[in-house]
């Protein structure tokens, strides 16, 4: 059975801090790993990673995948209160378009 584990479960930081969120996985026929940000209801897409060692970056957010050790990290630098959300990691199998297996999420709270 495919499995995705995120850590920590929750995190409280102050504005300006840097955070690292972790995602480890066990999945057959791995194809891609995705990060989403969920503030209220709809998760919004952040990154999709398919290759090891290639960092994806968007503003203050960046992510990298290690397919040998089966994990990914999501970094957020110079955190802002607007970064407060649940961050979800999901993995998808090789067959294009198939369902994603999600981790339980990391709840991040950024205090002013």
């Amino acid at each position: 059975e495919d499995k995705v584990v995120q850590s920590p479960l929750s995190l409280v930081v102050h504005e300006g801090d840097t955070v690292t969120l972790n995602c480890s996985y066990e999945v057959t026929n791995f194809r891609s790993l995705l990060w989403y940000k969920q503030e209220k209801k709809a998760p919004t897409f952040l990154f999709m990673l398919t290759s090891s060692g290639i960092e994806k970056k968007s503003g203050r957010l960046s992510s990298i995948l290690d397919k040998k050790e089966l994990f990914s990290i999501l970094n957020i630098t110079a955190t802002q209160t607007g970064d407060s959300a649940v961050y979800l990691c999901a993995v998808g199998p090789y067959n294009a378009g198939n369902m994603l297996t999600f981790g339980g999420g990391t709840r991040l709270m950024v205090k002013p």
Partner: protein
Amino acid sequence: GAGVSQSPSNKVTEKGKDVELRCDPISGHTALYWYRQSLGQGLEFLIYFQGNSAPDKSGLPSDRFSAERTGGSVSTLTIQRTQQEDSAVYLCASSLVGENSYEQYFGPGTRLTVT
């Protein structure tokens, strides 16, 4: 262009009643997914449609749950004889399908409360 839309946004129903939840995917997206998110939990896959292929129903929790997708676009998730444990946010997502891996785009969800 419009994103994924879902209706209703909130639904309160009495235990034992049937409910229908609707999803309009992004135009041109041939893959459509339903997920469920219980309070404080991660997303749980329910069912997946791709084009005219038979849907992947492997995530449906019981035979009270069913879904259909008409004309390759709009989808309806039906829950019969609702139970209190069905209370959750039901999220729909859509994506392109092809040789590459494509991200899924989520709708705002329907919050279902069974009293």
